[in-house]
């Protein structure tokens, strides 16, 4: 696991969660997130949310009372009541560069995805080869701007065969939520 990973929750629990989530989208690249050139980063659990912070920041924020602490570094997602991990759009900037499976969306249906709708075949621009079904993907616009996360509804081969109105990517999180769901980000 590397040195210095501090968590207040069950690290094991988080690890399970990340086993579910991270391999879906970025796989083994998770190590790259932790051991960065500018210092070790770690995940810290605080009030059911997982935060990605550098160790320096963690040390600096150590003395803040638990009740007063609201957020730390970047929130990656949260654990639901049934202990499932839901990845949040705020992790997009960090996960996008490491994503193994990407989906590009045409300009016309960019807006639709940003409103929270699923991506249809008619809006699909490109998709990485060998994407399995129900694989976690990162959704991009044609200008290579990351828009959010999703889950592939069909494998790449199936995407070619299916009709234009079929869903190809299930929506999970998009940047439009910054405006739509500002309150739930905390």
């Amino acid at each position, binding site marked *: 696991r590397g040195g210095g990973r501090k968590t207040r929750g069950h690290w094991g629990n988080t690890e399970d969660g990340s086993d579910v989530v991270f391999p879906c989208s970025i796989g083994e690249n998770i190590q790259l997130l932790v051991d960065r050139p500018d210092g070790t980063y770690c995940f810290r659990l605080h009030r059911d949310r997982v935060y990605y912070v550098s160790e320096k920041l963690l040390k*600096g924020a150590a003395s803040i009372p638990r009740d007063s602490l609201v957020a730390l570094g970047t929130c990656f997602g949260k654990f639901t009541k049934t202990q499932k991990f839901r990845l949040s759009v705020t992790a997009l*900037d960090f996960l996008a560069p490491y994503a193994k499976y990407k989906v590009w969306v045409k300009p016309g249906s960019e807006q639709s995805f940003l409103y929270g709708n699923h991506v249809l075949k008619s809006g699909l621009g490109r998709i990485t080869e060998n994407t399995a079904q129900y694989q976690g993907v990162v959704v991009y616009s044609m200008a290579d*701007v990351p828009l959010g996360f999703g889950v592939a509804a069909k494998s790449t081969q199936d995407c070619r065969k299916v009709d234009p109105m079929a869903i190809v990517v299930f929506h999970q999180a998009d940047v439009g939520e910054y405006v739509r769901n500002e309150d739930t980000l905390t």
Partner: protein
Amino acid sequence: MGRKLDPTRKEKRGPGRKARKQRGAEVELARFLPPEAEAGRKKLSSHARRRAAKRRLGVAGRTAPGGGRRPAVKEQGDPEKEGRPVKTVGQALQRQSGFNDDNAKWLIPAKGKKSLSKKTSVELSSSGEVEEDSWEMEEEEEDGSSEELMDDYGALSSEEEELLPIEKAALKQKADNGDLSEDDSEEDEVAEETSRQKTGQEEKEDADLQLNLEIDEEFKLPTDEQIEKETAEPPDLHVIHQRIKSNMEVLQNFGVKREEGRTRQEYLALLRRDMAAYYSYSDFLLKMLMDIFPLPELINFLEANEVPRPVTIRTNTLKTRRRDLAQALINRGVNLDPLGKWSKTGLVIYDSSVPIGATPEYLAGHYMLQGASSLLPVMALAPQENERILDMCCAPGGKTSYIAQLMKNTGMILANDSNAERLRSVVGNLHRLGVTNAVVSNCDGRQFPKVLGGFDRVLLDAPCSGTGVISKDPAIKTNKDEKDILRCAHLQKELLLSAIDSVNATSETGGYIVYCTCSITVEENEWVVDYALKKRNVRLVATGLDFGKEGFTRFKDRRFHPSLKSTRRFYPHTHNMDGFFIAKLKKFSNAIPKTQKDEEPAAAEATNPSADPETVTEPQAKKKKLEGSKIAQEQKKPQPALKNRHSLQGQRRPLKAVRPSPHKSHAPVPNRKKHRVKQNGQ
């Protein structure tokens, strides 16, 4: 173009040549133009020259010019002609009658100004030239000359005297309009100036056009009956506006324009009432504004508050560059410009076909909607990389994210706010903009430095009354009164002391506190900073902002430390940004000075805890929230003996400034000197 070399006139070259300047165009042209006939005469216009030529030639010369001018005469006189002085016409008549007695037939003596002005307006100078300086005598003369002539077309010149029917109608209409406008300006309360008197004044003044005739009227204060009548009726805004303007005119030049027996206070009171009615301000706020601004500036300020400030955005340099962002937004159909020379990241939006708060660039975190004045305190703070910064009142997170981008996501920022709901927007914004070095906390600002201390820099954007952002929230005009201002001031003082205590004076790169508010009142700005100067080992330094008005060093009966000049004030009407106040303090010692001893008995001192942080923490224990503060508790806690102390403990209570002021006007100066000397010793 060089001048032709004239070998006969060789310029002397040598060390003395530069002292001799070139003689200029007149000298050169003099070689080509004939010399002026009469050196004493002033320069004549072309028409005047023609006239002079005619005079020289005598009667014989009259035949030539007469015909050419007739078609030009048909042109309509323009309004500028009406402002003719009477005197010169009289002169013309005299000169004419002296010149040629035949003129008696056609020459009509001046009956009234109107008729004369009508007559003069008919005749335009020839060839359509409009000359304001060409006096009536030319026309009279031309009339006389043309009387005897038959022009080429066979029409007699006498017909020219008669105006065409349409010309007559136009003149009449003009005269009527002139009367009407005079009538409008005369209202019941405003004085009864006769039109004759007014035009008389006009005539006496220069030929400059006086469009706003009300300036000349005498302004009379309304009588009591008029006031009663007004209060009974719904207010007529136009009337009030006119009255405000006239009142200001009188007050500008009070010695001359005042009414006898009426004091300046009465004029001021009326002005205040009118402005309160017209701009919908409470009387208290208006009184305060009149103390801060001189009268003409006050009007500008009030007007500026009616209009919203332009929308500005700040580029997030963590994710993009300003020109790339500008390009992308322009492609979306947004009309924008860089904010100014002083900002490298700001852009001002003029108009946009897409909502600025919802573009894909916004969602990607490339920019933040932020007022221009909010960029200034962070620029003054100048955070460096790898520093520890505290932002005490950070919501909604604009300044925090600017700090983060200046630090390039290094170091640590503690973004604190006492309002948990507003913190959500902070978290949202920080995540959207890609800020990774921030820790967000929900503490009362006064709990610092107990929660965490030893910061390099602190930014305190204190909660205030908001008198600088009235254009964003017009409710402030009426719902702020003295208690609110003093309560805010009290809170701000406490926060500022906590902020100062949270800074590590021995930090290599830092030791700075920036205090800013979006208010323009002196109680919340200069007073608070002055208080901090007395209570802590800090001094004011230059903010680094080269524009903006300097802060006040004295105000009404209060005197502040002279270094307050380095603070900056910004106003909506001068800088077109929200009203703001910024002060930058440098902490030079971590020690906290004890409070001043004076002639009070030692017993009172012993009961009073001397170190300020302790007294600060006392109220904190009781207070949880910033809003709905329990002022009553605050007031009871400091001992009654403190009332008489010079020490600024007395200032902490939200008392009226009037009461302690007789003490304070003497106290601050000697106290401060003592303070300086006894830094650590006492």
